[in-house]
């Protein structure tokens, strides 16, 4: 493999890695405030992409994306209010099954609204063949959009969780819900907000990455599996680690195509997932004791 | 020869040394109590003996064989049964069925013979049920046999859990706070019950906060504080032990 191809694989890996990291961060936000793994996380990404494409048919691109994020956020809020809120101390099994059911519903609705075809937003700048020469490597401008918007999202979240009142409230809720409520924090709203935030981030990710990866009614599930893999790889709940883990998975996956037939590309993520679960479920950066203490 | 021998047992959780170099023995046929203020490491010690936790260092010898590092079900098979601080009865099962689970180690039917419902499994089933009813008679709770275990009164649940442990026919019975949540009358009954258990030839090692029960019934008392052993003696001597008084009531009282 020559050096150019090598870097192309790296670039592709980083691109996909960013979207996986975004899904993982969405998982972490909801997990941190509720302890739930939201199997429907991938669907937020799919919805973001699909609605953005639809909006773009009559709205300029930035407005379309904003509208898509807005709509998906509402969907996230609806899911929490309609389905999750009712449950009083549900068992893990019940939660898993409900979120799977929700994910199926969203997917089937998408199928009936948009059909089976793939869609994509146009490239934000340039076309599908334009390329910027960065140090000898040819990178599509869209990749720069993806990575920079991804970085902005991570930075924003950092600031949000550490320096804003609402962010700190969410962290309090995740550490100890009852204590947080005793301090006057409205836990129910925090939960709703975490779903909305996750949905928004997912939708944004889905929109910006759609020119490269295309989006279709069933893109959600594989993304959920890979996002979950990344979340676990970095340590469940740890969003900074999720970014690094996303890059690792993206790049590994990218290089797998060089070795195995393309059909097996998705398999590498699952193999990594199983490997992590069997060997070190606390993830690369997590602590084994904390993982054991947290109620699954 | 001692039934249970613990030597230099240690367990640490991150920054907390829960149990530190604890050594003691439990002689055959004795009733030994483990006391200490909250956070002293009593439950950790129990969990180390019953196999729920693995010690960092030290050894536990039971009936002449090393048992530290074994899994809980293996330790149960060696002859150690236990009850739990927060009652762990099996929900959706009657009191009798709970106790029948205690007969697991004394029955044999496996998956295949269970599925085929062979004659020997049916016979075994009857024996198990009969033995369990015997146990309920011994404990005086025969009338509770068909009640759903988790719907019983707290005191009754404690006795059912005790029956389940006894059904294992253990050599050593670990009781984790057997009197917790019991009123005075129930505590006195529990005292008498433990005495009758000793009469069956079973050695008892119990954790307890209720001093009346401890002092009344124990042959020996082991005192832990902050993970370390500070006393291991007969009950009367423990009551006068200045270290123990210091730990429970503070320095001034010890000086008095």
């Amino acid at each position, binding site marked *: 493999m020559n050096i150019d191809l090598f870097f192309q694989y790296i670039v592709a890996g980083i691109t996909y890695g960013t979207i996986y990291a975004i899904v993982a961060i969405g998982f972490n936000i909801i997990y941190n405030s509720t302890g739930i*793994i939201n199997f429907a996380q991938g669907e937020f990404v799919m919805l973001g992409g699909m609605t953005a494409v639809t909006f773009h048919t009559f709205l300029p691109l930035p407005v379309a994306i904003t509208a898509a994020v807005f709509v998906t956020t509402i969907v996230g809020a609806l899911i929490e209010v309609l*389905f999750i809120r009712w449950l009083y101390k*549900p*068992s*893990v*099994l*019940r939660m*898993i*099954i*409900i979120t*799977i*059911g*929700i994910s*199926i*519903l969203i*997917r*089937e*609705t998408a199928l009936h609204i948009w059909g089976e075809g793939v869609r994509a937003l146009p490239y934000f700048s340039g076309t599908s063949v334009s390329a910027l020469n960065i140090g000898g490597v040819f990178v599509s401008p869209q990749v720069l959009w993806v990575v920079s918007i991804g970085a902005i999202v991570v930075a924003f979240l950092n600031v949000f969780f550490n320096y804003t009142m609402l962010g700190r409230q969410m962290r309090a809720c995740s550490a100890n819900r009852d204590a947080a409520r005793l301090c006057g924090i409205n836990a129910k709203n925090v939960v709703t907000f975490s779903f909305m935030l996750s949905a928004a981030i997912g939708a944004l990710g889905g929109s910006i990455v759609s020119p490269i990866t295309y989006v279709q009614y069933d893109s959600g*599930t594989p993304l959920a*599996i890979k996002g*979950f893999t990344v979340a*676990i790889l970095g340590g469940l709940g740890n969003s900074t680690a999720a970014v690094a883990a996303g890059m690792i998975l993206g790049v590994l996956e990218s290089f797998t195509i060089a070795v195995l*037939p393309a*059909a*097996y590309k998705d*398999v590498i993520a699952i*193999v990594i*997932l*199983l490997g992590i*679960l*069997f060997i070190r*479920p606390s993830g690369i950066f997590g602590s084994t004791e904390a993982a054991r203490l947290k109620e*699954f | 020869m001692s039934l249970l021998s613990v030597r230099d047992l240690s367990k640490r959780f991150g920054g907390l040394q829960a149990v530190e170099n604890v050594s003691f023995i439990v002689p055959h046929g004795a009733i030994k109590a483990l006391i200490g203020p909250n956070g002293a490491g009593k439950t950790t010690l129990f969990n180390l003996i*019953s196999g*729920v936790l693995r010690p960092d260092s030290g050894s536990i010898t039971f009936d002449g064989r090393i048992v530290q590092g074994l899994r809980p*079900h293996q330790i*149960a*098979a060696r002859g150690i049964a236990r009850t739990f601080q927060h009652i*762990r*009865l*099996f*929900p*959706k*099962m009657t009191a009798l069925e709970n106790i*029948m*689970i*205690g007969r*697991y180690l004394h*029955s044999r*039917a*496996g*998956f295949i013979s*269970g*599925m*085929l*419902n062979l004659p020997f*499994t049916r016979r075994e*089933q009857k024996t198990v049920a009969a033995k369990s009813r015997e146990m309920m008679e011994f404990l005086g709770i025969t009338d509770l046999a068909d009640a759903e275990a988790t719907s019983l009164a707290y005191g009754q649940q404690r006795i059912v859990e005790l029956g*389940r442990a006894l059904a*294992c026919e253990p050599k050593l019975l670990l009781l984790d706070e057997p009197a917790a949540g019991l009123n005075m009358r129930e505590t006195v009954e529990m005292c008498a019950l433990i005495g009758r258990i000793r009469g069956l030839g079973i050695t008892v090692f119990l954790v307890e906060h209720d001093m009346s029960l401890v002092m009344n019934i124990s042959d020996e008392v082991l005192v832990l504080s902050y993970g370390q052993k500070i006393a291991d003696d007969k009950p009367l001597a423990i009551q006068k032990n200045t270290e123990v008084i210091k730990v429970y009531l503070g320095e001034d009282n010890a000086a008095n």
Partner: protein
Amino acid sequence: MRTSYTQVFGFTALIVAIQILTMVTNSSYHLTQLTMTAYYSLLIIGLCMLIGYAGQISLGHAGFFCIGGYVTAFFTTHDLSSHKANPVIALLAKAGILIVRPDLYGGDLLTVHPWAACVVAMLTALGVAWFVGGPVLKLKGHYLAMATLGFGTIVYRIVLGTTFLGAADGISDVPPFRVLPGIEISGNASVRVINYYFAWGLVTAGVLLLLNLIHSRAGRALAAIHGAEDAADAMGIPTARYKLNTFVLSAVFAALAGVLLTHYNGGIGPSEASVMKSVRYVAIVAIGGMANLWGSLFMSLILNYLSLRGYFGTYDDAVFGCILILIMLFAPEGLIRRSILRDLRRLVSGGGVEETGS
């Protein structure tokens, strides 16, 4: 406990009644979907054992179904004629393990005898379940769900992406399976009735075995593990081994279902391994009442039949998704249970539904 024999008898009567009904109304074609439903039900009751009694969720059971189906499909259709000279092949042919049969174009195929293929398929599923189950069952909750989902997805990707397994088209022209003289598993209309009774007879036998298991020492141990695993451990029950045994048992049921249905349908495709299929099976077990063998069986009968008849149309997957959500929200113990009337009353009067255990 012996009332289960009356239940079994009642169920058998129902099966017979259905067949007579179709005969009388001249609608024997219904028997085809009903037979297929029977084989899916075989998988369902095994899964019910795992989820309801052992308390372990599996979102990848379609994978075991496919292992059974694809192994048998491959061996009974793959032509070994080109290896006729090979001594091992010749020996197997002489032993009757390999048979010669005509293909569609009048030529001769040297393939594995369906019985041998069936045994190999079951052993493969057993082996995979044993190998995968060990590490997977150490996980709990979300992690277990994801791991089983991952397993199912790997099987799906493998059958979808491998050419000698037919890739997207799957394997077809799978020959009928002559189980015993007179009983041939095939979709042929002339043997519809026999196939119907064979399939449901097998399901009945399966239910009997599982009912026996539930009421046996092993079944009680499983209930104990499900109810309070640490207490079960303390009673000497080797929890890991029991969970694994149940997992393997349910995998074997699933694989058998896969083998027989493949012969009945004459083929198998990658869609049988899809995540949606696995989810569907879990939905049926959930709605039937997690730890309710009869409940799961009835729900399987109704839902699988309706789905196979196409009553749900393009909303097939959506229906199962809705079922999952509604059941988990309002009836987490399933629909078919003794307390259903009490819970309905409570629901109507404004209280929530209690969730016991799990």
